[in-house]
Structure formats: C-alpha cells, structure tokens
C-alpha cells in the first residue's frame, strides 16, 4: 500500500500519460470536458485499478470527475 504522497504522485503520473498534459494542467481537467471523455475515463479506471490493485465500483467511477476526486477515491479504497 502506498502512502498519501505516493498515491498522489502515482495518480498524477497516470493523468499525465493518459491526457499527455503537464503537471500544471492536471488539476484543471474535468470529466465531460475535452479531452476527458468516456474513453479517457476507461483508461484512467483501468490504470488506477492496475496501479493500486483495487476495483472501482460504479459509484466510484461516477464520482471520478477530477484529479482530486481520483486521489480521494483511491485513498478511501486503500483504507
């Protein structure tokens, strides 16, 4: 299990690769706003599940609408 800082760094890295954006832009991204569409969402979910060895339920996926929420969801799943 990763500590909170590692979790945030690992998720940031996932977002950087999926969206090909730099650090500053990651926090601005919102689900439903280009380039974060349902296909990108699928890539985010697959990557988070593999990275943290967790399973995201439907509610988690619906809540996953920003970088901050991704961090929060994973932290909760890791408790």
């Amino acid at each position, binding site marked *: 299990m990763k500590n909170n800082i590692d979790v945030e760094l690992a998720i940031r*890295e*996932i977002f950087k*690769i*999926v969206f*090909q954006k730099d650090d500053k832009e990651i926090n601005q991204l919102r689900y439903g706003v280009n380039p974060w569409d*349902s*296909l990108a*969402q*699928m*890539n985010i979910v*697959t*990557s988070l599940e*593999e*990275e943290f060895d967790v399973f995201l339920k*439907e509610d988690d*996926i619906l809540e996953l609408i920003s970088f901050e929420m991704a961090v929060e969801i994973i932290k909760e799943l890791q408790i």
Partner: protein
Amino acid sequence: MVDKLLFNLKFIEILKENQRLENSFSGSKYKVAILANITINQLKPIFELILRQEGVNAEVEIGNYNNIVQDSYSSDNNDAVIIFYDILNFFESNIFKLTSIDKKELIAIENRITNDIDIIYKNLSNCSNVLFNSFDVSLIANLSDSKSSFIDLVDRLNKYLIAKMPKNCFYVDTSFIIRKLGTLKSFSLSNFFLNKSLYSTEFLKEYAWETYPLITSNNGKSKKVLILDCDNTLWGGIIGEDGIDGISLGENSPKGSVYLSAHSLIKSIKDDGGLLAIVSKNNFSDVEHFFKNHKSTILKSDDFIEKQINWKNKVQNIVDISSKLNLGLESFVFLDDSMYEINMVKESLPEVTCFHVPENIFDYPRTLLEIKKLFYSPNTSSEDAKKTAYYLEESERKKSKSNFKDISDYLASLNLEITINWGKEIDIPRASQLTQKTNQFNLTTKRLTEIEIETMSEDKDYLIAMISLKDKFGDYGKTGLSIINTNKQKSVAEIETFLLSCRILGRNVEFIFLDLIIKEIKRLGFSKVKSSYIPSQKNIQVADFYEKNSFRRIKNNTNGAYFQLNIDNYQNNNNTSFIKVHEK
C-alpha cells in the same frame, strides 16, 4: 524486437511506452483501422506498441462505434483493417437476449449479418490485409445451451465468414484466444455495462500478440531463419556425454515425446518456407552421427541449410550464417536452452528474436507454436517448399566460387539462364510473395496482395515481368519481378516495382532484367521511362541503381528520388554476355 514482456506491462506503462516509440519514427505510416460494434479503443495503444516494437511505423485508428458497415465504405485505403463484429452486442445493452429469442428472429439476425458480411468484404476488397474475427458466444453459453439455436447460428455465421472469405482476408478465431485465457479473464462485464467495452485488457494484449504477425508479414517482417541449438533443444540430454542411445527423443518416454513433437513443429516451419540452421557447441561428427543413425528423428541433416557445429562463439556463428545467406539478422530467430547463450545473443545482436527452451519441458511445444507464428506468410507459393534446396545449391556455388580468381570467369562458368515471363500467365502468389518479402533489392518496396497483382495482370495498362533463373547447380526459381505502368495516355511508361530476391544478387541479373524491360517498353512504342527509388531501412544498396543505368535524376523529395530515361540514351554497360535469355 517484440518481447512478451508486453504481458508484464500495466496498461499505463503500455500507453507511456507507446507514446515514447511514436516519436522515434518518421516517414509514412502503416495505417491500421479497427472497425467494431463494441468499444475497443484500448486495443489501439496495445496494437500500436507491439507493431512499433517490431519496427512498423504503425498508426491504429478506431472506427465509429457500431458503424462497421458504414465505415467499411471508406476504409479500404488503410494498409490493414480489423473487424470486431460482435454478435453479443447485436442487441445493444442486453448481451443475454440472444439466449432467449425464437428461431424466426434468429433467421432475421442471420440474414442481416450475412448481408453485412457481403458488403464488408466487397467494400474492403482493395485493402491489402483484412482480419475478420470469428463470432463467439462463449461468454453467454453454458453446457445446457449446447443444442440451442443461437449456438447453431454462430456456427453457421462462422462457416459463412470462411466460405465467402476473399483472398485478402484472414479469419481470426477469437475462441482460440478465449480458450487460452479462459472466459472469466477474457471478458469484462463491468466494462461492458459501463462502456460497451466487452473485452478485458488481458484479452486485448493476447489478441494483439496472436495477430500481429498477420499484420507484420504484409510488411516484409516475417521471420525467415530459425537457428537451433542441439543439446536439450533438438533432443533431451547432451549427446557428447549421453551418446546417441542416452538422449531423449521418441515415444518411449514423456520427455522423448515432447522432443518428437518439437521435431514435427520445427519441420512444419520449414515446410511453410522457413529456413532451419544449427548453431551448437558440439562435435560435428556426433551431430551428423545422430542425424544418420537415430531411429526416431524426424528432422534430417539436409533439412538444415547451415550447420555451425563447433566450439566458437555463437554470436559469431550467427553473424556468419547471416552473411552466407545474405539475410538480415532481424529475420532470424534463435532458440537455445541456455540463458547464458540467449543473453549473449540478445546483448550482441538485438535484432535477433530469441526464445528459451522452457524449464518445464512440457511447455516446449507451446514455445514452438509461438515461434511458428512469426514465420507466418500471408501467401505461400510453390517456391517455399524448395527454399532449403536453393540454399543448399548456393552453398555448392560458393565452394565452386573459391576456385576462381576472377569473378567474371566464375559467373561465366555458372551457365546462367534467365527466363522472362511477360504478363498474363505469371505466378500471382509468388509475385505477391516477392513484393511482401523482398527488402534489399527492392526499389520502391511496394507490398502488393495477390488480388492487387491479379487486377494489374488483367489491366491492359500494366505490364508485369517475372524472371526465373537457373545455372548448372540448380534452379533459383522465380526470383525477380517488375511492374510497369504502360498507360498510353501518359506517353511515359513508369516502372512502379523492380525487385530481385537476394538469392540471385551478384550475378548481374538485375542489369539484363532492366535491359529486357527497357527493350519491351520501347517495343510498346514508348520513348521515355520514369522510375523511382523510395528509401526503406533496407534498400540503400540500390539508391543509385537507376542513375548507374542511364536514368537521369529529375526530382528528390522526402519520399524518395525520381528518375527519367530517354530510351535512345539507354546503354547497358554491364557484362551480361554470360547470361542466356529465354522469353515467354
């Protein structure tokens, strides 16, 4: 080199590595379109990565969701098209509906899908490579369904797919991959209900791994030579220590049976046109004694074109074989039981694809099936079965060559005879195969399918010339091809393809072949000929071929160099007097 390490990469690592590799390519892209009635977007980075690792500058595009037929109208300009027509998504959102519909509805579905198949085949008839996945219902079927109508429907659809399949299409039996992985690992119901993405990433990795040779083979990337160790590779045990009676090969033991199976699989690679060679640290006489006297051996000494059985470094032996066969190391596969040797080859010759005989010997046939896949060629021709014989004859030529100090004396001694076959009756599978496999002496590297060549051969605006060559040692077979656009309205003929198999290089055959082509173009009433050199990673040796043969360079651009010849200025200054010509 493609590495099975792909399976150890997380999806995010695949995305990252794929993005890194994308920037390492330049030039024209090999375009692959995936048309699907399900969400299949995660296959894009996986397939791109595997193709890019294999040196193909690939770009995979996913068609619009559930729009296969419409997309097929505009997809035949791709280099390859993959069709995921999933019957499970025929009723959107309810993949289990198929289990409960009546026969009348099933007939309507069958009619609709067979009609779609006909349209897709027709629309993609000009695409050089189409992979059409089988229909599969293993996700929704169970034992009690085995007599159900929807199982019969899927069976009939797959039979229809195969029966109507044109030459440019390949049937991909996805049930093979599902059986390999298991249904639970192949499908993701959560992804399906959330995104209409039916398959798991494990399935997609396995799919890409199984099918990429079908794509790369159309790109001149098929493997050509399988180099094998002997001890614990062709038999169990060490022949120098255990002796011919102490090694394992034959039906009398489980281990012996595994090696017997290995012999059959290795032989099948040869029968499909692959070349076999041995690189082994052993006494030559022990190995020859094995081939002559072992009762169970399926492989014989003359199945191998080269045998480097000595105590020298294996890397040097492999390089020697590459040089003798005039074949690039990237077309080599090396199989050995020693990780030390494998690592040495991997380190020194990264172009060579290496496989390790598995520790668990019962997995060995599976390893060989993986290897066999890399030798896949979309079109086999009658020439394939003769390939080993050609190379053995070549070995005799090389021995003879060493007796001559002057190369022209040697060439004259060969009694070379070329037969040129014009137009209609050329061997189309072989012509296509030459375009797919020839890399070095290939001026434009245009990969053409049988259908494309067949179409050209029936087109009065195209002239196709194919040459065969023989000498006193044997027949080299059909080893040269040229395709010339002779559209009279253009007033200038254009050589679109000019290639020679590496098997016949160094005999001045290219000059007499060009000579014959120029004469024929002149006979057809043309006074000028255009040609081009399109550089690839392999064909630098022919960059100045046209300029050395009276053509004038008229243009250069990022794609290549373009030439023109005024036929009145043409001169063949090369000595070709020792080659006898027959025309058909």
